């Protein structure tokens, strides 16, 4: 097979030289980080319509259709209120139902995004093997789908908050930056778990437990003042929990007299921003480093 080393007998070039002369690239090579970010931006229409399509598809076999977007958070809130507000008769927190639903809906945004993200690569192998697009589109679309769900939940939440007699204040505007910071955080986290889930398929089984633990550490179901009974260093650690920060920000914005663990608004905003930037960039880089491996196997 010695003669096959020459691609073109006339020019006497080897295959590699021939490829280099005509500017051919190695198949399946990973693009540079900036080139990847640019391609991803060019695919924003795909990300948006894929997220919409996923949202529509998830309700396509239900009779009530997209009404479930509102019914699911409502039912969730009702179940938890039944247990914690009515059976356990918790009295410490004024307006407990609004306190509970705020925490629940904010946490649920991250929870569902992470669960969807874990499977966003491993569950779409057909699409990945068929078409070439920047793979980060899939976890980002999963985040966007959950963001749309969150907006529906927020409508429900604002309804609950108003019905339970909270006043409308200028602080409500704080909800917008709080949700945006959380969305960036979620986007990065979703990309990170997407890469992990693509390699380790067992992650899907473990993830619900990790998320449950995280929820208990974020003061969703009970008063955050319980954390103050912990030793000092542990309380400070809990204050750095990004989910606790995002939930506290939303409670600070919407509720008038909710107990808060964090003492200052500035501290919450700083911790929330640092987490969003670190996770957003870190998750993106981590996902990009695995770009050429998705869909193989």
């Amino acid at each position, binding site marked *: 097979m010695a003669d096959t080393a020459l691609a073109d007998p006339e020019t006497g070039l080897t*295959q590699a030289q021939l490829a280099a002369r005509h500017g051919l690239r190695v198949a*399946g090579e990973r693009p540079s980080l900036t080139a990847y970010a640019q391609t991803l931006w060019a695919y924003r229409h795909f990300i948006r319509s894929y997220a919409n399509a996923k949202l529509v598809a998830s309700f396509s076999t239900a009779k009530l259709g997209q009404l479930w977007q509102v019914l699911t958070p409502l039912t969730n809130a009702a179940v938890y209120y039944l247990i914690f507000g009515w059976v356990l008769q918790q009295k410490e927190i004024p307006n407990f139902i609004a306190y509970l639903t705020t925490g629940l809906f904010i946490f649920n945004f991250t929870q569902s995004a992470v669960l969807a993200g874990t499977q966003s690569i491993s569950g779409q192998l057909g699409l990945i093997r*068929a078409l*070439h697009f920047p793979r980060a589109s899939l976890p980002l679309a999963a985040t966007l789908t959950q963001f749309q769900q969150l907006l529906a939940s927020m409508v429900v939440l604002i309804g609950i908050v108003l019905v339970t007699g909270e006043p409308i204040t200028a602080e409500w505007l704080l909800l917008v930056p709080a949700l945006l910071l959380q969305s960036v955080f979620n986007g990065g986290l979703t990309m990170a778990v997407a890469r992990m889930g693509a390699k380790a398929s067992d992650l899907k089984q473990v993830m619900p437990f990790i998320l449950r633990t995280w929820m208990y550490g974020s003061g969703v179901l009970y008063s955050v003042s319980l954390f103050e009974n912990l030793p000092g260093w542990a309380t400070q650690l809990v204050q750095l929990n990004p989910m606790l920060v995002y939930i506290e920000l939303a409670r600070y914005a919407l509720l008038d007299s909710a107990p808060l663990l964090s003492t200052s608004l500035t501290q919450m905003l700083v911790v929330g921003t640092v987490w969003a930037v670190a996770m957003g960039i870190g998750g993106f880089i981590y996902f990009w480093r695995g770009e050429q491996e998705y869909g193989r196997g």
Partner: protein
Amino acid sequence: MVEHFEASNDATLTLPRVEQRIPTVVVDEAHVIYRVHKGAGGGTSPVAALRRLVTRTSAPNIQEVHAVKGVTFTAYRGEAIGLIGSNGSGKSTLLRTIAGLLPVNRGAVYTQGQPSLLGVNAALLNDLSGERNVTLGCLAMGMTPEDVAQLTPEIIEFSGINERGDFASLPMRTYSSGMAARLRFAIAAAKMHDVLLIDEALATGDKGFRKRSEQRVRELRESAGTVFLVSHQLSSIRDTCERTIWLESGVLRMDGPTDEVIRAYEAFANGK
């Protein structure tokens, strides 16, 4: 083992082409080894899995397959190349390697632009209507929303899924396998690709669709792309490709004009 045909250059000379032949795919001594899961079998019990975790050995149900063994060839702009060979000879693996979906273990594969692989098992979103799948597929190939809006009716007409009622607005899970394959081919063929890799896709679909798709493959080729076609139907290779590569157990057996290669392949297959 590799037979070279002087005539292979003559066959492509007759094509309309630019002065210098421009390579689009260069495969250099490529070896592809992939690992397969043998599925449930011995050693999948929980105890065995735990022991593997502790001793850090890999699962026993994973086997290595050396699918492509040192294949070398160059494909040029404007060529349509057929890939033939018995089942399991490495044709589909070679296509997936060119598409960049499988890594080479030794050697190298160089391509121009991003080759697109079109396979029969390429899945879109089954819960969505055919029309939405067209939109998604086109956006995933990097088209702008304006292009997509303009091309969607053409793609649906080309696929012929609306010949028996309005199937374009029904979810794809209601389609027959032939209809779904036709729609996927129509979506992938809507874009001009530098390199288009087709895996058995033309074999599905009725006579009318086959005619349309062969015509489309010719158009794609004339617009300066390269088309690879894997098929067991020698007739569709004969109709669309003038050059054919014959793989047998991962080794390039013959590379030359379609007529000669198919004749040799048929003699081999009959004599087996």
